[in-house]
């Protein structure tokens, strides 16, 4: 018997978290007398901020370490898993780690009756509006938590690690048991009972939230999975065609890399109040991903499928409430915001304000030191241009 756990995380921000979870599953399993090992998807390295990455943990009760290694180890990715953990719920919109990989469903590897385990503040039903349907039934479970982003050197220690261990135990005790998880956490940090308690709470929570997803439940997956060419079907000398030179003003006026878009890197996207824009160019100028298309009226449209959600445009924009970063799960398509604005400025602005709302979070300079929650300001259409940022 083999138990496979896949941990989906955002590159760098959750690198340490993903690895800690994978490692501790193995340590706890072996404390229970089980065989296990853990590894990451090698080609994710070197990781980039925001890129969807994977870590794995494999556990067996009966196989030898070598058999388990042969079954699971000598592979770059897995074919299926018992549990797929998702450490940032915006990855439910799909994951594309490299070119020619395609935007894959987050539950691609979840086997029949396997579980997609998501840390989120949303309900399973809300999440199902983004997850691909499957021909068989599988399970969806959630446990609550804020976005847990840290850095390479400063780790975000917000108990997401412990919660996830408890949640995994709650879904499948054949991987790790909750008592063993608690015992291990108490043994590791005797002075910090909160860690074991967090695991226990998540354990109980997932047993409540877990629900079966019937065959066909979920969304139709619209992204194609590319077929890799055969050896004689592409140029020799390691040469590949460049992006074709094309430029005009307006949406999609700039030619872009069609075979590797970056959209699944973002967990927030910039929402623009075109009516407040001073045409200062800074969002366009600061964008490291060339996502802004200047329009004939001097505004800047956004090619969302290429936006990585880095926040630089929102930071650079000198006008309050003009560019605001909004959680990616608030959006269902990547269509041009400028076109929507031109079609109906009032309606677009209303929609934009609704997305933005007033509850916001922002990361401090050192990512791992925690989220800052702020109160935004609503600016009605035609309302006075908001005061410049201080």
């Amino acid at each position, binding site marked *: 018997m083999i138990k496979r756990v896949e941990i989906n995380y955002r590159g760098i921000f959750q690198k340490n978290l993903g690895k800690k979870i994978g490692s501790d599953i193995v340590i706890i399993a072996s404390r229970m007398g089980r065989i296990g090992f853990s590894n990451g998807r090698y080609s994710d390295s070197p990781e980039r901020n925001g890129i969807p990455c994977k870590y794995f943990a494999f556990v067996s009760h009966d196989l030898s370490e070598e058999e388990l290694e042969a079954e699971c180890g000598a592979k770059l990715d897995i074919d299926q898993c018992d549990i797929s953990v998702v450490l940032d719920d915006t990855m439910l919109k799909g994951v594309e780690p490299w070119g020619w990989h395609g935007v894959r469903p987050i539950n691609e590897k979840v086997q029949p009756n396997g579980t997609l385990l998501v840390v989120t503040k949303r309900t399973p039903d809300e999440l199902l509006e983004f997850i691909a349907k499957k021909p068989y039934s599988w399970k969806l479970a959630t446990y609550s938590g804020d976005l847990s982003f840290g850095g390479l050197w400063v780790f975000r220690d917000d108990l997401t690690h412990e919660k996830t261990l408890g949640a995994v135990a709650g879904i499948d005790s054949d991987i790790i048991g909750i008592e063993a998880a608690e015992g291990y956490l108490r043994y590791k940090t005797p002075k910090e009972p909160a860690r074991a308690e967090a695991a226990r709470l998540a354990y109980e929570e997932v047993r409540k939230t877990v629900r079966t997803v019937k065959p066909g439940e979920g969304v139709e997956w619209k992204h194609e999975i590319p077929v890799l060419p055969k050896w004689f079907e592409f140029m020799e000398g390691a040469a590949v065609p460049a992006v074709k030179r094309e430029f005009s003003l307006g949406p999609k006026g700039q030619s872009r*890399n069609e075979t590797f878009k970056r959209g699944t890197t973002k967990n927030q996207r910039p929402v623009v109040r075109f009516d407040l824009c001073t045409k200062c160019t800074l969002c366009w100028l600061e964008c490291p991903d060339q996502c802004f298309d200047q329009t004939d009226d001097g505004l800047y449209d956004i090619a969302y499928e290429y936006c990585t959600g880095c926040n630089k445009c929102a*930071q650079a924009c000198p006008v309050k409430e003009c560019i605001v970063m909004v959680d990616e799960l608030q959006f269902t398509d990547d269509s041009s915001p400028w076109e929507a604005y031109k079609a109906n400025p009032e309606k677009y602005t209303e929609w934009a304000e609704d997305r933005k709302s007033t509850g916001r979070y922002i990361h401090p300079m050192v990512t791992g030191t925690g989220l800052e929650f702020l109160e935004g300001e609503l600016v009605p259409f035609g309302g006075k241009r908001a005061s410049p940022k201080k």
Partner: protein
Amino acid sequence: MATETIVYDKIKGVHKIPLEEFYTSGHRTCQGCESATTMRAFIKVAGPRTVVTGSTGCMYVANTSYMTTPWIVPWMHTQLGAGGSSAIGMAAGLRALKRKGKIKDEPINAIAFCGDLGGGDMGLSGISGALQTDYDLLIIMYDNESAANTDIQATGLSTYGAQTTFTPPGSKHRIMQKRWKKNVAGMLAVGHPTCKYVATACATFPPLDYMNKVRKALAVGGPTFIHTYDPCPKGWDFHPRYSHEIGEFGIKSGLYPLFEIIEGQVVYTYDCRKTAKGRTPVKEFLEAQGRFAHLIPEDVDYIQKRVDDMWEEWDIPGVAPIKGVLKA
């Protein structure tokens, strides 16, 4: 001023920046990658009649995931230490083919970029060789102060005290990165009297400064070199939102001197001397990054002291660590 003696197509305001991209969307760089901005800006102002090589490093591996590319202009990978030699190869080949009538005789820019590991450490002698030729070529060393592509190891250009995977703080040694940052631009300018243009820059601060330096380098002709300071959200451990601010902090604190050396004349493009703009405390820059989280006040004071010394004591601040001549 020397900088005015160069005849070049100056970009006079942000609204005058060319809109068209030649390094376009769809690359595997980090969120908020400042080096990606460095790439985007140099090719934007160099234009489509350009051939580019990129040394192994982040801007190679992150930018191109096989069978796709973000480059619209011709681009080729070159080896880690081959920034200088690849530029020579392209420039020499094109010159010969034009002279011998094998291709149309027209201006084509040859630009090579390399990181601080490739250019500042391994490739230094190759760049030196390139700067001794008379070919029209530009070498851009994008400096994110680490081997960012192998998960952040220290290089000869990492800031003193920084945590990297080769220099982790420990219970016995708080600071493992004990080397002071190598002054590559200054060294190259001082060592290559016939090289007409060497500059340091930062992609987004001050606005337009870097783009115009690239334009100048290409206009001056001959072999030229630009060293850019590229804040790295991944390795320096700050949120991508603040890439611009971190660069601005570094420059205003005087840690990263911005200058041009044009035919032997130094021009400070952000003058941190007390007699000019002055400096902000390096503390502000260090505190904003997780890689310095382990530093204690004495470490910060030491860095501050060395920066003050560089600006107030050196004969040519930021360029040559020489305080004057002793009588024999």
